[in-house]
C-alpha cells in the first residue's frame, strides 16, 4: 500500500486531498500518516472530514481513521459510482476544495455525475468560485472535459452556507494541454461583490481599481448579493488573454479598508501582467492533476510554490508519470508532464 507522510512539504490538507483524488482515480489504496502534524490544531478537521466523506461515497471506498483529530487515515477505493450527490461543509469550509478532491476521478467516468455542494464558496486559502468558473474550468473543457458549474448563492467566511452545483458529463479521455504562453491580453475586468454590507464599499473598491489598473478600458461591475446567508465582500480581477483567463481575488474583512482590499487584488493582477508566464500560482496547483490524468501537458508558471512541489511528489507516488520542473528565468518555471 502507498504510504504518504502527511507532514512533508506543505504539510496540510492539500496532501490529503490530492492523495484522495489520485487514489480514487487509480484505484490504489493508501495510508496517510502524521496528518497535519505540525499545525496548531493537528489531525483531521471538519472540512477535511467532509472531503474524505465525499471521496468515500463517490469512490465507494472503505475508510478507517476518519474521525475528528485523527492523524492517520487508510483509504481503499472501490468502483467509482456516478450519480447525484450532496455534500455540506460546516465552519464555512471551502466547498470548492471538496470539488477539487473528487473532480479529477470523475473526469474519466462513463456516466454523468451531479454534485450539490454547500459551504464556503468565496474563501481565502481556497480556490474561490469565480476562479473555478472563469479560469480553471474553461481550461479543463479545452482538454475535453465537460464540466459546468452554477452558483446558487455565495457563501463567505465565516458564516458559509453558500451553494453551487457541478455537472460532470462523461467524455472518456482527456487531451494534453500546453500553456507556455498566454498570447495577447484581450480584456481586464474587475468585479466587486457585496452582501449584507453597504454598496459604497464596492464603489470605493472599483473606483480605486479604475484609477490604478494599467488598462485603458477596464470593465467594472458591482454585484449586490442578496441571497447569501452572511455578510461578505470580495473583489476579483479577470485578465483575459488569447490562451487563457486568470483570476485574482481579494477578500474584505471587518476593520479592513475597502481600498486595501482592492489594492491586494490589483497587486496580484499587475504582477501577473508584468510577468510573461501565463499560469499564476493557484492555477498551477489546480492544473497538475488534470495534466497527470491526461498523461501529458506543460505550462509555464511565475511561481513555484510549496503547494505545487508537494503536489508533484504526491502524484509521483500514485502515477508512473514524469514531471519535470525547469527554471526558465526569474519568475518563470516550466512544468512538463509526460507518461
Amino acid at each position, binding site marked *: 500500500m502507498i504510504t504518504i507522510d502527511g507532514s512533508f512539504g506543505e504539510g496540510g490538507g492539500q496532501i490529503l486531498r490530492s492523495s484522495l483524488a489520485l487514489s480514487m482515480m487509480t484505484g490504489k489504496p493508501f495510508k496517510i500518516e502524521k496528518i497535519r502534524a505540525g499545525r496548531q490544531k493537528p489531525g483531521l478537521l471538519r472540512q477535511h472530514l467532509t472531503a474524505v466523506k465525499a471521496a468515500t461515497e463517490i469512490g465507494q471506498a472503505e475508510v478507517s481513521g476518519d474521525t475528528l483529530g485523527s492523524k492517520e487515515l487508510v483509504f481503499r477505493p472501490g468502483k467509482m459510482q456516478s450519480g447525484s450527490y450532496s455534500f455540506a461543509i460546516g465552519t464555512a469550509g471551502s466547498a470548492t476544495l471538496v470539488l477539487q478532491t473528487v473532480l479529477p476521478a470523475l473526469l474519466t467516468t462513463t456516466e454523468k455525475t451531479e454534485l450539490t455542494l454547500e459551504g464556503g464558496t468565496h474563501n481565502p486559502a481556497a480556490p474561490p468560485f469565480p476562479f473555478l468558473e472563469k479560469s480553471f474550468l474553461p481550461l479543463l473543457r479545452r482538454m475535453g472535459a465537460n464540466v459546468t458549474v452554477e452558483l446558487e448563492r455565495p457563501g463567505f467566511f465565516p458564516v458559509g452556507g453558500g451553494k453551487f452545483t457541478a455537472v460532470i458529463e462523461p467524455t472518456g479521455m482527456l487531451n494534453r494541454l500546453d500553456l507556455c504562453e498566454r498570447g495577447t491580453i484581450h480584456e481586464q475586468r474587475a468585479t466587486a461583490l457585496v452582501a449584507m454590507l453597504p454598496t459604497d464599499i464596492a464603489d470605493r473598491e472599483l473606483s480605486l481599481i479604475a484609477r490604478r489598473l494599467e488598462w485603458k478600458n477596464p470593465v467594472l461591475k458591482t454585484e449586490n448579493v442578496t441571497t447569501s446567508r452572511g455578510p461578505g465582500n470580495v473583489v476579483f480581477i479577470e485578465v483575459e488573454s488569447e490562451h487563457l483567463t486568470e483570476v485574482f481575488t481579494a477578500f474584505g474583512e*471587518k476593520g479592513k479598508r475597502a481600498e486595501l482590499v482592492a489594492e491586494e487584488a490589483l497587486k496580484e493582477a499587475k504582477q501577473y501582467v508584468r510577468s510573461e508566464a501565463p499560469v499564476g500560482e493557484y492555477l498551477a496547483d489546480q492544473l497538475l492533476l488534470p495534466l497527470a490524468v491526461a498523461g501529458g501537458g506543460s505550462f509555464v508558471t511565475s511561481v513555484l510554490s510549496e503547494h505545487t512541489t508537494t503536489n508533484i511528489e504526491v502524484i509521483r507516488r500514485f502515477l508512473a508519470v514524469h514531471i519535470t520542473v525547469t527554471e526558465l528565468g526569474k519568475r518563470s518555471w516550466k512544468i512538463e508532464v509526460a507518461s
Partner: protein
Amino acid sequence: MNQKKLVVIGFLGATLDAGKGPGRWEKWRPSVALCQHDNLLVDRFELLYQEKFTELGQVVLEDIATVSPETQVELKLVNFQDPWDFEEVYAVLFEWVRGYEFDVDHEEYLIHITTGTHVAQICLFLLTESHHFPGKLLQTAPPKRYRGDDPGTFTIIDLDLSKYGRIASRFAQEQQESLTFLKSGIETRDPAFNKLIEQIEKVAIASKAPMLLMGPTGAGKSRLAKRIYELKRARHVLEGRFVEVNCATLRGDTAMSTLFGHVKGAFTGAVNNRPGLLRQANHGLLFLDEIGELGLDEQAMLLRALEDKTFLPMGADHETDSDFQLIAGTNRDLHRSVAEGKFREDLLARINLWTFHLPGLKDRRADIEPNIAYELDEFARRNGSQIVFTNEARRQFLKFALSAEAVWSGNFRDLNAAVTRMATLAEGGRVTPEDVADEIKRLTRSWQGSGEPVQRGGLEQVLEPEQLAALDRFDRVQLADVVAVCRTAATLSEAGRLLFSTSRERKKNTNDADRLRKYLARFGLSWNALKGI
C-alpha cells in the same frame, strides 16, 4: 464513522445568543460559535429555551444550520417563572434530566455552561457533578477581539478527573445526604445475613435491652451498631447520642474514669470533673466493642449501671444517673472467658439476651459485590470523585474475591482497604484490570502467614469430641487447614488443586481430588459431609 455521536445540551442565551439582521454575525454568540469550531463537531444540540425566546431560538437554529450543516438542532422548551430562583430552576432541570433518554453507549454528552443565568449554570454544574447529566462540562469563550471570523475557544471539563476533585469535594457532603436518603444502606444478597438484619431491626425497635454482636474482626460490628443507633433514633426509640469505645483501649484508672467519669481531685491528674462515657450516653446508645477485654472491676460497675441505671464516678460521693442502651461487641467466646474467670457470668447473662452472630466476609460471598459498590460510594463521598471499574476489571476482581484463594481474614476491613487502594490508584476515575491484578497481589501477600485457616478450622464442628481428642496436634493443624480450604472451595477438584498446588506441578498424573478424598477418609470425613450435602 465509529465514534460516539457528540451531543451538546445547553441553554439558549437570552442575551449572549441574541441578535437580528446581518449585524448578528459581527457578535460572538456562544451557541452558534460552538458549532463553528473546525475541531469540534456537534452532531446534535439540545437547545433549552424559554417560551418568550421562541423567535430567537428559531434564528439561532437557522444560523447553526448554516454554519454547521452536520449539526441537528433540537429546540427544547423549558419554562421557569423565575430563572433566578434556584429551587425552581433546579427542580425543572432535574425533571428534564430525569425525562431525557441518555444513550451513553452511542452518544457522548457535553453540558454547555456559558449561556443561561448564573443560577442555571450552577444547576447544570450540580446536575453534571452528581452524574445526573452523564457528561462533561463545556465552557466557551470569545476570542480576545471578536471580528466575526474566530469562534473563540472551548474547554471541556471532565469533573470525574481527579484534578477537579477539590471542587467536587465541596459538594460531596450534600451528595452524601441525598444518597443516604435515597439508599438505605447496602443491598446485601446473602439470605442468612438479610434475615439476621431483619431480626436486629425488630429487636432494635421493640426493645431497649442490651444486644451482643459477635463476629470476627472486620465483620462490621461497629458499623452495624451505628446503624442500629440511627434506626432507633429515627424510630424515636432513643434521643441521645451514640457513644462508642473499644474496651481493648481502656486500661487501669483511665478505664474507670473514661467509662464512669471522675470528680475533680479523684486521683492525680484529675483536675476537672469528667462525666464519663456512660453519662454521655444518657438517653442514647453506648457501644462497647471488645467487651471481653474489659477488666473485672469495670464489669461489676457496668452491671450495676445496667441494672440500676446509676453508678458512682471515681471519687464522687453521689451516684450519677444514666439511662443508656447498650450494644456490646466481641470476637471472643465469652462463655469460655467466664469459665476462665475473665468475664463475669452475671454480666454475660445480662447482655446476651439478644445475641447476634455476624458472619465473616467469606461466609457472605453473595454480599461481596454490593459491598464493593458501597465502598465505591463511600470513597466518592469522602473524596468527591466517582470511581468506576471497567467491566473487565470488575469481572476479574469479583472472580478473585469469590474464589477460595481469597481468605478475607480481615473481612470487610480488608474489602474496604482493597477498594480504597484501587480507587486511590485508579487513573481518571477508572479501575482497570491492571489495577485489579496489582491489588490481588497485595491482598494475597497480606494474607500469607496470617494463620487464619489453621486457627479457624472449626474441627469441633466436623469431628466428635473424642475423635478430636484422639488427634495429635500435628494432624489437627493440617486437617484444620484442609477443612478450611474445602469449605470455601466450590468443588472437590478445586480444593485439591489448591492444597496440592506445588506438588502437582511435578506430577505426571494429577489426581488431586482423589488424593484429597483419601486424606479425608482417614479421618472418617467426606467431601459431601463437609459441605453439608
